[in-house]
């Protein structure tokens, strides 16, 4: 067996162990830390599979921002959580049955999946790459061939933010402001902004793009906000709302524009198919707006401003 095989096998086993350890951890803080480590290892697994886009997104969002989100949720927990009321005797049995049936269905579905799909759409996608307005296949799929999916993803993010605004979370414990952390976050800001826009720009030719860049921007904003170096990101401010909606709005406007430009009588019109000369510009515009929207939305999800509602 080659070294690669052992590395991958070790990684797979490590992922399973980390997942189990996360669920089984007695302390919530330990569970969150294990979950972050799990996310990093999962990013490594995606990188091993050659999916650099997914690896970047998993490391930035799955491990980084979700970790920060869980920690800030943890900071709002009361000191001691009363253990839940013990359920009846039949409950474990029912849970076991549910797990077994779910596992069977999932396993059966996995078994049905062919390792090499017979009708792969990859060759067709590669053929059309030239007319997509970008040189990187993943970006072409996300923002041209399957632009509809990406638009809906942005809507899901928006709905998630609106949903969390309805939940009344307790106030976080008083934050300690450490001079060292504040100095570091200010020094880190230009670097994070630079890397975020680099990742966005690189998305045209190589792994990278709006979600990864947005997550990096959000990281910078979250650190600044938690250190008390940013004013409250109030949802009432018009620019906050405008930036949150920017991604979806840019998408819709680009869609309407290309509908208008592609319009030909007696021909089926396609929603969200960019006219070729404008494709690169439109994709870049959407990605830029989506990056800003994703960055601010993720920031608000993690920071979860409370004072504006109670005031």
């Amino acid at each position, binding site marked *: 067996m080659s070294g690669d095989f052992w590395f991958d096998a070790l990684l797979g086993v490590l992922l399973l162990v980390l997942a189990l350890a996360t669920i089984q951890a007695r302390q919530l803080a330990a569970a969150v830390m294990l979950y972050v480590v799990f996310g990093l290892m999962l990013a490594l697994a995606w990188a091993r599979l050659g999916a650099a886009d997914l690896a970047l997104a998993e490391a930035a969002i799955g491990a980084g921002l979700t970790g920060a989100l869980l920690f800030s949720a943890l900071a709002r927990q009361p000191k001691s959580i009363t253990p839940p009321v013990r359920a009846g005797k039949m409950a474990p049995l029912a849970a076991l049955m549910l797990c077994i049936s779910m596992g069977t269905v999932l396993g059966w579905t996995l078994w049905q999946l062919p390792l090499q799909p017979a009708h792969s759409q990859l060759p067709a996608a590669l053929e059309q790459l030239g007319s997509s307005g970008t040189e990187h296949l993943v970006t072409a799929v996300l923002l041209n061939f399957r632009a509809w999916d990406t638009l809906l993803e942005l809507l899901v993010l928006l709905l998630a933010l609106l949903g969390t605004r309805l939940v009344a979370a307790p106030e976080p414990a008083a934050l300690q402001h*450490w001079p*060292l*952390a504040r100095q*570091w976050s200010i020094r880190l800001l230009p670097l994070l902004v630079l890397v975020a826009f680099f990742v966005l720009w690189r998305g045209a030719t190589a792994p990278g793009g709006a979600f990864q860049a947005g997550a990096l921007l959000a990281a910078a904003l979250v650190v600044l906000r938690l250190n008390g170096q940013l004013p409250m990101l109030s949802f009432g401010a018009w620019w906050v709302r405008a930036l949150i909606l920017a991604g979806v709005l840019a998408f819709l406007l680009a869609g309407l524009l290309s509908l208008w430009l592609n319009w030909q009588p007696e021909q089926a019109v396609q929603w969200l198919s960019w006219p070729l000369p404008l494709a690169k510009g439109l994709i870049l515009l959407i990605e830029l707006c989506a990056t800003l929207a994703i960055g601010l939305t993720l920031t608000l999800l993690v920071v979860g401003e409370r004072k504006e509602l109670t005031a």
Partner: protein
Amino acid sequence: MMAWLGGVLLMLGLLFFLAGSFGVLRFPDVFSRLHAVTKADTLGLGFIVLGLGVLQQDWQRFLLMLLIWGLVMLSGTISCQLLGQYGRDQTRDHEESAE
């Protein structure tokens, strides 16, 4: 010759990571654990970057790895300081409440 040198440097780096991990597991309090784990970050990663640089002999990638090493060192130092401060405050509070 170069391959040997690179291999030795990589092994040295791994040794520091191993020692750091043992330190985190075995040392009794926050401060000595932090001491152990930051050594792994700085020296271990430094030796691995040096070893890879010797093996690859591509100065562009080497510079990039040096930059990453520098960033890891900076963030490691600062998070170590922050954790140390937090640990100090916690132990002080604990002692005060015990008195």
